Every structure is written in C-alpha cells, then in structure tokens.
C-alpha cells in the first residue's frame, strides 16, 4: 500500500544544512496500523509530509499503491496535531471543508457527512460551532473531516497530544474503532510509547537526527477483542514497552 524507498530529506537554511531523514525504508500493508516513534526533531513530521506529497524528498521515492507520489492525493487523509477546526464554521461546515476544496460537493457527499456525524454521535452538534464542543468531540470531528474525502490511508501526526490523559485514552479507543470500522490503513506518529503499542500492528522506531529506521517491531498481543485500552492489559505490553524504551535510548539531560 505504502512503500518508502531510501527516502532522505535535507533542509537548507542560512545556518547550514540539516539532514532530517536518511535512507528510510519501510512499507505498510493495506489495512495495517503502523506507529512511528522517535525522539523530538528526528524527522517524523517531515516523513509524514513526504508521504502525503506536501513535501518532496531530496532523495528516494514513496509509492502509493504502486504509484510514485508527486503532490497531494485524495488517497491520503492527514490529521494534524491539533484539530484545527475553523471556529467560524459550524461542525457540518467544518466536515465539508475537504470536499469543498476538492470541489466534489454533491447532495450525496452532504448526505455522507450527515451519516458519518450520525454514526459517531455528533449529529445533534452539526449546527454548533467548534467552541461549543469538548476536546474529544473536536478530535472526532477532525477525523470525520479527514474521512470525508474517502482516503485509503490515514496519516496521524501526534493527533492526540493536545488532549488531556483521560480524554486521550478515550479518543484513542474511539478513533481506533472508527479507523478499523472504515477499514483504513493508518500511520500514527507519536511520542507516547504506550500509545504506539496500544494502537499499532507494528511500531517503527526512528533514531535521533538524522532520522533512520532503527528497529521495527511486529506486535502480537494475546488479547481479544483488541482495542487500545485492552491492549494495555496484554501480558506482552510491558515487554514491548521495555524494548522500545531501551531502543529510544532516552536520556534526561541535566
């Protein structure tokens, strides 16, 4: 589904050249959920921007379903760190942003928006403004907005980091259920090791800058049914946590 081949990225600025990513290789299967963890500034956001086609890599290629990425594509849905709902638009209007920009608004699409809002418990709020919603609800609206353009692959860049811990756990479960239900492929970038394990089929650990793939863990958690919350109860959870923690080699600098 997604193939990343030898991707490298260099940024140029007056202070010199920064190699953000170096020779990144991995692939993601259709329907798979992959987490990417790595130290701050190792190029995770850069990697997602490259996969989404917002940014052209200085080396290597990304293939989407066998086709080379050049520019943004409707196959990809990108969820940013904050929900970035536009506060002058109602919930319904926010959800319609993607179709509006892609000029694909039809009665059918509007119907679909209402249907998604209905399914995920936001129908009553469709004429409300974002300021009237809780953080968790806003995040759900942001996901529906992303789903509206029918992407096959979802990129989530620390999509939950703006939420408080308890809301975050609940939203993890919510979003995970929605992604599974809509049968999407997902790549989640996060700082939170527990979050990365709880949601993913595989975890990719990046090294610090210049980011390279340090290790890829295929998770098998013996728990059913699997949700982000139940995953945390799995006996293997602690083991993976330890492994990834060691791999990340986190130091607290004095």
């Amino acid at each position: 589904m997604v193939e990343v081949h030898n991707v490298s990225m260099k940024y140029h600025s007056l202070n010199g050249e920064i190699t953000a990513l170096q020779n990144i290789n991995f692939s993601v299967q259709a329907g798979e959920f992959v987490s990417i963890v790595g130290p701050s500034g190792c190029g995770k956001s850069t990697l997602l921007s490259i996969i989404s086609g917002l940014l052209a890599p200085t080396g290597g290629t990304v293939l989407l379903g066998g086709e080379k990425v050049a520019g943004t594509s409707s196959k990809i849905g990108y969820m940013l760190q904050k929900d970035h709902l536009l506060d002058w638009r109602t919930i319904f209007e926010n959800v319609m942003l993607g179709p509006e920009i892609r000029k694909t608004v039809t009665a059918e699409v509007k119907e679909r928006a209402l249907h998604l809002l209905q399914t995920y418990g936001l129908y009553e709020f469709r004429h409300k403004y974002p300021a009237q919603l809780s953080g968790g609800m806003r995040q759900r609206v942001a996901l529906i907005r992303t789903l509206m353009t029918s992407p096959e692959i979802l990129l989530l860049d620390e999509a939950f980091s703006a939420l408080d811990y308890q809301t975050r756990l609940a939203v993890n479960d919510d979003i995970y259920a929605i992604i599974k239900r809509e049968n999407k492929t997902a790549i989640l970038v996060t700082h939170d090791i527990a979050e990365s394990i709880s949601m993913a089929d595989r975890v990719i650990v990046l090294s610090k800058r210049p980011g390279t793939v340090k290790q890829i863990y295929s998770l098998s958690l013996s728990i059913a049914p699997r949700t982000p919350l139940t995953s945390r109860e799995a006996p293997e959870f602690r083991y993976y946590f330890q492994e990834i923690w060691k791999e990340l080699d986190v130091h607290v600098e004095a």
Partner: protein
Amino acid sequence: MLKRKARKAMAETSTLISPEHQEFLRQVRLEKTRIRFTQVLILVISFGLWEIFARANIVDSFITSQPTRVLKTIFSLYEEGVLFHHIGITCLETVIGFVLGTLLGTVIAIILWWSEFLSKVLEPYLVVLNSLPKIALGPVFIVWIGAGPAAIIVMTLAISLIVTVLEVLNGFLSIDKEKIKLVQTFGGTKFQVLTKVLLPASFPTIINALKINVGLSWVGVIVGEFLVSKAGLGYLIVYGGQVFKLDLVMTSVIILGVAAALMYQGVVYLEKVLVKNK
C-alpha cells in the same frame, strides 16, 4: 450579543430566581441608572454653566459663543437649507474614506501576502510612509488632483491606507501555519488558502481596522476641508474662524462631535451584526 444571551438566560430562569439573585440584579440595574444619570447631569451642567457664564458676561460670548446661540445658528442654517448639505457632504466623504481605505488596504495586504518578494521589497517604503505625517502631503494632493472632494478623499486614504495594510497583513501572518497546511492536505491552492482560512480568520482584524479608519477618516476629511473645500463642516469651521463667527465654529464642532459619535456607533452595531456567530 452577550447582553441578549444574559437576558435570555435570565428569562429562562426568571421563574426560579432566588431573592438574593433578585437583589443582585436590582443592584446592577440601580448602578446602571446612577451612571446614566450622572452622565446626563454632566452634560446639562456644562451646557448650563456655559449659558449662564455667557449671559452674565463672565466670559465673552463673542469668543465662546453660547448654547442658545448655537441652537439659533443651527436653526438659521436649517432655514437657509444648507444644514444637511454641509453635514451630508462631510459624512459622505468620511464614509467613502473609511470604506475605501479598508477595502483598498485589505486588497494591498492580500497582494503583499501573495508575493513574499514584493512584500520584502516594499517593506522599507511602507515603514517610511507609515511614519510620515500624511497631512504634510495635503498641498501635494491639491496640486495634483485639484481642490475638490477627490483631494479630500485622497487625503483620508493617505492617512488610513498604510495602517490598514500593515494591520491586515500582520493578521494574515499571525494565522497558525498548520491551518494553512490543513487546506494544503486537501490539495488546496493558494487562492483557497486565502478564501477558506485567511480571509475568514482575519475578519475580526479587518472589522477592527474599519473601526480605526472611521476615526482616521474624520481627521482626513476635516483637514482636507480646511485646505480646499467650499462646503462641509470643516469648511464651516474654517470659514467661521476667518470671519470671526464663533457661533458658526462652535455649532459646527458640536455637530461634528455628534455625527462622529453616531457613525462610530453605527460601525459598532454593524460589527455586532456581522460577527454574531462568534
């Protein structure tokens, strides 16, 4: 907006208002009435004293005029059929000035946002133009454009335009880059970034610029009328000063004050209507 909400909330709970809360509301109303009353009192006393001092010859009413003479002047201007002519011209020039200043300023801000190259090239010029006292350009405009309403409106534009450009451009640049990225993730063009995010997000900034421009526009119009005009409140003030008709000067100043306040209130009302869903 807030008031309406509060009133609605009050209406909803009015059946179960506790005595303490009723007492609180009564106090709030009382305080409001006291403030209003004092405000009116100040007005009445100052005009009253002005009249009394003038009548008792404590001040020379030839120089200070007096309220009754102001009323008389208003009436005679009205009789001559020129009262609304002068008020109308000045107000029209002012409205054209601030509307044009805000629109043109926004358009220029959009152009500068669109082309980073242009905005960098023009930056020093904007700084110089911004710090230049624009009134100094008055005689230049008169020579270039001719002594008439056009020169007056250009004068008001000169005063308000640069400030508007800088204000709105700043508003554009302070918008979260991630919101722009959001539009781009949907394959949005630069034009869509402008229409879907930049302009709606900057709407409050633009309305604010409009409010500031109302004040600046009055300054521009009055200065312009001082310099060139044959009609308008600024013209009446200058003319009255030249022929030592202080009644006319005072009358015009008072009308000017009332007109400016009314226009500002109008814009505040417009703002409320336009940004009601905030």
